[in-house]
């Protein structure tokens, strides 16, 4: 009986093996980049030429909706990806789960910062203020700090395997903030309007506003998936680089 070193197991184990992952994702990057660019082109065309110039509740600032909502959605979606990856790290100790967590954190921080920035600019003409300490805005600011804390934690450790376990625990604890962000507008009185897209009785906005919003959200989500994929591929190579640098340092030490 011989030992077979090829990657076996279910399909997930095969595609998630670092070497296999780097191999199957290589031809995916360029088509994904083209699809993302096309989606953005369509979304911007719809936002400026299909959408009405104003709506009843937000007036002529309607067009900020098309970039604020996708970034707000991604601020939570990216965290969900990180929380799922954190489970992968703690339960299955899968190396690609570590890589996914690390690659997603700076992107999550970026989209959360953009959600706050666009929300603030939207707040001034609609509510008369750039900032209000209401539940949604405060919990989103806390989310940004959690993302920044996670990025800092990754950088604080030389041993990335040890960092992954600590970051995974921190990520899962921080996930408690996500339902607060999501339901804050229902739990507390807020300047924000209640949920108007993902509702049990269907979206509460006309099709000529909803369609550009959904296309823009899809474009931003595809952009995140693309950047996440490329950053994961880079992280796999970076770990190879660190191994080689350690080997070189050990060889130099032996010679000395």
């Amino acid at each position, binding site marked *: 009986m011989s030992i077979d070193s090829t990657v076996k197991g279910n399909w997930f184990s095969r595609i998630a093996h670092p070497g296999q992952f780097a191999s199957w994702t290589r031809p995916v990057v360029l088509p994904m980049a083209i699809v993302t660019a096309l989606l953005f082109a369509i979304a911007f065309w719809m936002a400026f030429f299909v959408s009405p110039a*104003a709506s009843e509740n937000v*007036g002529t*600032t309607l067009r900020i909706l098309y970039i604020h909502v996708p970034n707000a959605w991604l601020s939570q979606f990216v965290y969900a990806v990180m929380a799922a990856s954190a489970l992968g790290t703690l339960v299955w100790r899968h190396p690609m789960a570590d890589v996914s967590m690390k690659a997603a954190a700076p992107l999550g921080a970026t989209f959360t910062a953009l959600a706050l920035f666009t929300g603030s*600019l939207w707040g001034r003409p609609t509510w008369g203020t750039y900032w209000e300490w209401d539940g949604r805005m405060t919990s989103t600011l806390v989310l940004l700090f959690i993302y920044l804390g996670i990025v800092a934690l990754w950088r604080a450790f030389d041993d990335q395997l040890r960092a992954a376990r600590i970051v995974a625990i921190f990520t899962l604890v921080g996930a408690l903030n996500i339902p607060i962000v999501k339901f804050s507008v229902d739990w507390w009185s807020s300047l924000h309007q209640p949920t108007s897209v993902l509702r049990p009785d269907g979206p509460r906005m006309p099709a000529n506003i909803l369609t550009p919003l959904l296309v823009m959200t899809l474009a931003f989500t595809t952009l995140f998936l693309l950047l996440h994929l490329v950053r994961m591929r*880079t992280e796999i*190579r970076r770990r190879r680089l660190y191994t*080689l640098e350690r*080997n070189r340092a050990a060889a130099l030490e032996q010679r000395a």
Partner: protein
Amino acid sequence: MIDLGPHAIFIVWAYLGVAVVVAAAIAHTILDRMRVEKRLSILEAQGLRRRSDRPTSRPEGPAA
């Protein structure tokens, strides 16, 4: 020119801010990749390999 209404300045700043930050995130992703690849190619050109990359010298045969 599209008429953005009386609050055009807020719309322009919002779109401009998002465009700049997204462009920076894309640029950082690409530059980081290039930097890692460059450092890796230098080390690999020096003949450095991971242990798992080296061919095993153990002869094939029935496992014990």
